[in-house]
């Protein structure tokens, strides 16, 4: 996995709360068996509307998503993370994320940075006034910066460390394979087996 220390880019103001994973990527796009190509499904229903914010030419090259609270609720589909990444997003800012979405993002290297709703509002206003505004999400310093806005971001310590080091979770776990074997040898014999 690529390491993530900080990212600077332009941002998309998505003035919506409760953006569920069915909106991020509808089920009909989940049928691919690879990890790429999901950008066509990103916000597919909303993108049919020419007025949708992502369709505006001045937001063509965005890489940071600034969304309302409860982003990523709904299903466990990691395709939602891939769709955002395939489209070119590196980070999502919201005042609250759904747990599974947040976990999936951490695994895939998409930064989900939790900030105060007041910061989200300030960013929305600033970006709408100037779509070219450069936004920096700095994992090392744990802050977001944009013009005169400087605010702390809330990220889990362990996820931060893994993202900054670009480490693969499975590799980390397999270093403890002896502990897993020991645990297995102590499991009660009444526990079920599938085969």
């Amino acid at each position, binding site marked *: 996995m690529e390491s993530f220390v900080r990212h600077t880019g332009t941002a998309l103001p998505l003035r919506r709360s409760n953006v569920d994973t069915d909106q991020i990527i509808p089920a009909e796009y989940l049928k691919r068996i690879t*990890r790429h190509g999901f950008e066509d499904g990103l916000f597919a229903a909303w993108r049919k509307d020419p007025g949708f914010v992502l369709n505006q030419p001045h937001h063509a090259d965005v890489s940071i998503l600034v969304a309302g609270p409860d982003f990523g609720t709904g299903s*466990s589909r990691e395709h939602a993370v891939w769709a955002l990444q395939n489209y070119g997003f590196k980070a999502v800012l919201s005042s609250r994320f759904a747990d599974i979405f947040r976990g999936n993002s951490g695994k895939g290297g998409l930064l989900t940075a939790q900030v105060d709703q007041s910061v989200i509002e300030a960013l929305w206003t600033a970006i709408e006034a100037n779509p070219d505004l450069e936004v920096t999400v700095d994992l090392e310093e744990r802050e977001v910066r944009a013009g005169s806005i400087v605010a702390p971001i809330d990220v889990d310590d362990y996820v931060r460390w893994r993202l900054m080091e670009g480490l693969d979770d499975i590799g980390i776990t397999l270093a403890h394979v002896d502990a897993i074997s020991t645990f297995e040898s102590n499991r009660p014999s009444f*526990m079920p087996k599938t085969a």
Partner: protein
Amino acid sequence: MGRTLAEKVWESHVVRRFEGEPDLLYIDLHLVHEVTSPQAFDGLRLSGRGVRRTDLTLATEDHNIPTINIDQPIADPISRAQVEALRTNCAEFGVPLYSLGNVEQGIVHVVGPQLGLTQPGMTVVCGDSHTSTHGAFGALAFGIGTSEVEHVLATQTLPLKPFKTMAITVEGDLPTGVTAKDVILAVIAKIGTGGGQGYVLEYRGSAIEALSIEGRMTICNMSIEAGARAGMIAPDDTTFEYLNGRDHAPKEAEWDVAVEYWRTLRTDDDATFDAEVVLDASALSPFVTWGTNPGQGLPLSGSVPSPANAADEGERAAIAHALEYMGLTPGMPLRDIAVDTVFVGSCTNGRIEDLRAVAEVLKGRAVAPSVRMLIVPGSVRVRHQAQEEGLDEIFIAAGAEWREAGCSMCLAMNPDKLAPGERSASTSNRNFEGRQGPGGRTHLVSPAVAAATAVTGHLAAPSDLVSIV
């Protein structure tokens, strides 16, 4: 200090604990389906890893498969490719698989419990958010993403940070006609779709204890709609009776050892929860959703809310947006909402007791001519059982379609979809925009309300129907 049920199960599965790192948790059962697994198997292949415990892993086909003509090849080439990828992957990695046509095939969360694979005190995961269903047995069960699927396949463990705990206490007797589905819709409307975020919910109280295992599964299933990753109910005699004799339940001497252990899986009296919510069962009534998230629900006797009465600007916009999508006007009685389709099925309400509740209402009645009604059993075994009980004849005589097992119109990955603008009453768990087909409008309801709605053509409870002598 005492511990909660969730904490007991968590503690008994810690493989490794290290300051500043997540706990490494052992996984007792890993369920797999075709949608969230192909990229995980691919990852294993790329890194030259195998599946550590094929004997703790089970796959079934459910999300994409058709519910008619299942002896024919799957018509949609992409759906077919996904199902075939699962078959190839399971064969290559040695994972047991129940394919279309097998008597054990069905929705992953219906199959695990009915085989007796879901047991108290276990950790259960699946690349599907409704894995919370299995918490009805006192298991710690939660949905995971595809990277985590790969992690569990390779290591049988997951690095996780402990959840907080929330008690949802429902005391008292449920009024006649009020079901588990109504309880959970009322819970979600109360705490909101984000209210459970970061928590494991433990449902307790006399109303919960009085529920069957299937009702408890309906409740735990929708914990995710309240934002929680898992929901649990302490195991009791109802649980043990359900499990006893099932294919994978412990047998003979092992059964006694297991039950003795399972009886310890209760929240201690002196344990504290991080949060607590209390509901009065006797005040509940049939519940339906009017909006586009599962928290936007009201008693059936209510009316479509008005954005003007919203508490704040954010809520006002959310209500206005939902009403526009749903094509509803404020103040309209919920009972006046006419539907085009009624869907009975899914891992929330696709089990035998749900079908019995529907049959009880449909018996001797007919589905309204303006309504198409789809009844989709959650598994092949549920289908067979319904047929043994003659429920299928009641459904067909009433004018409903009786289908093969699968997820079907719960998420519309197979051909069962709503057309744009079409309105459904659905026993499934999500009323998100387009969930049941692009442009489709969904009202979440209980099986009994679904059946009464099919008869009248608009949202209704069985008590609204003229009685048949």
